[in-house]
């Protein structure tokens, strides 16, 4: 019988939506599910040490495959000496799972031989569960003294969250500047869309780091993904190719992004964006 523990993230007491996707995944494993919430500013060292003490008896310990889960869960794996699988996209049975490797250019199906396994769940691969799970907030009082949270420079916006938005419009190096990104933002606001970016756009300082979509950024799978001035490197595709409909706007007809796009528009984005804004 499976006994499942989900580690959920709370930010200032607020539930983060990834937990609903973890619950959906957990339900495929069994119905004995407990959800523990950890505040985002608790250090991984303290959180993992606390959870390790109560982990005995759980067959599966789940966390979302985002920077929260990726920080804590492997540490817990090291403390418990229980194997961990990252970024689960499919659950076949209580011991058999699939996950992407090589930036999603291959999938591997693996079978676990241990009594306990830790899993990070890729939120886009599991629908959000519709029920509100009962959540136990943990109060971590013991401080190992290894590290201290100093601050979070949060980038706040009124737009929908990148990982849960129905529509995402992303810009790449082709946008050329921070000022030009404002064109995308105005269109995003008309569509109630989130704004994303390629690594090149983040590196160039057009937008903050938390906009990055890709193998090493956020994984998104909206109903509609619009890529503007993005070439379509495999590392970027890894973060968005499960979107339902993909639109690519690029002036280079050979850009690899067109190979996965449902609708391809070969054009200069500086002509297309103003026209789009006007016609929406």
């Amino acid at each position, binding site marked *: 019988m499976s006994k499942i523990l989900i580690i959920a993230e709370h930010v200032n007491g607020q539930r983060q939506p990834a937990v609903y996707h973890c619950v959906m995944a957990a339900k495929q494993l069994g119905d004995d599910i407990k959800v523990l919430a950890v505040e985002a500013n608790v250090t991984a060292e303290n959180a993992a040490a606390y959870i390790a003490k109560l982990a005995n008896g759980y067959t599966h310990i789940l966390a979302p495959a985002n920077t929260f889960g990726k920080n804590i869960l492997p540490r817990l794996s090291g403390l418990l000496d229980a194997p961990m699988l990252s970024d689960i996209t499919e659950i076949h049975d209580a011991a058999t799972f699939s996950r992407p490797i090589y930036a999603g250019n291959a999938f591997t199906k693996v079978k*676990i031989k241990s009594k306990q396994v830790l899993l990070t769940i890729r939120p886009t691969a599991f629908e959000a569960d519709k029920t509100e799970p009962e959540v136990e907030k943990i109060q971590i009082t013991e401080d190992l003294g290894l590290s201290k949270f100093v601050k979070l420079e949060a980038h706040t916006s009124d737009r929908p969250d990148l990982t849960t938005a129905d529509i995402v419009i992303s810009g790449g190096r082709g946008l050329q500047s921070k000022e030009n990104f404002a064109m995308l933002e105005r269109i995003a606001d008309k569509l109630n869309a989130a704004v994303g970016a390629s690594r090149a756009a983040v590196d160039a300082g057009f937008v903050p780091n938390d906009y990055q979509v890709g*193998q*090493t950024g956020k994984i998104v799978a909206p109903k509609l993904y619009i890529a503007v001035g993005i070439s379509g490197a495999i590392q970027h595709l890894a973060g968005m190719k499960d979107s339902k409909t993909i639109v690519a706007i690029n002036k280079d007809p050979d850009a690899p992004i067109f190979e996965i796009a449902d609708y391809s528009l070969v054009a200069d984005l500086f002509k297309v964006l103003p026209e789009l804004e006007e016609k*929406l």
Partner: protein
Amino acid sequence: MNILIPIKRVIDYKVPVRVKPDHSGVVTENIKMSMNPFDEIALEEAIRLKEKGIASQLTAVTIGTQACQDILRHAYALGVDQAMLLETDKSLEPLAIGNILKAIADKTDAQLIIMGKQAIDDDNNQAGQILAAKLGWAQACFASEVNIEGDSATVVREVDGGLETLKLQLPAVITTDLRLNEPRLAKLPDIMKAKSKTIEIIPVSDLGIDLPEQIEILETTPPKPRAKGQMVGSVDELLEKLRDLM
């Protein structure tokens, strides 16, 4: 301060990866292999700490076959003082990697371990955190800025919500994100000199370390292909196609 930099040899990030027809893995024969890009960033950060006089001895270590000597030579060319190959033909699980690296951290008397946040082959993003747990050290993952002052490190981390700053007590494990630095290129004379440097080779089996085998790989398959798309000639045509979606 001694710094340990664990590195991994992976299929070069520019090479398109293909799954073998029998689904037993991905094609690696005659394919360009390189140092994992995140590990190059880790090496660069360690080298800069040495240049600032903060680090004294830099050790690069990799776990794998004899073929992995090429990335160790590359590490020598960039400026490490010592390179070690923990030799094995097996593909080891993250917990086994953690056990081995812990032993090497002890052996090299490391106070700081800087490593890539993930290897771009398995995309696990686990080894650094597992190692920190096994050592009982502080950890800062996905670093985009590192400052060492005395026996503490202030690290800015790239998290989903923005940028988080942590203050760590050393010894610690730091895993690197893409924006930590831009790795330098090795200079030709240094590449030549690196050819004659000694790589310490230790068979993993000689370490007498527990190497858990709890994950059985059943098959490796290609991703599901997407349906073929179509070209649109104008913004109007695009909006027409998207009418139901927006």
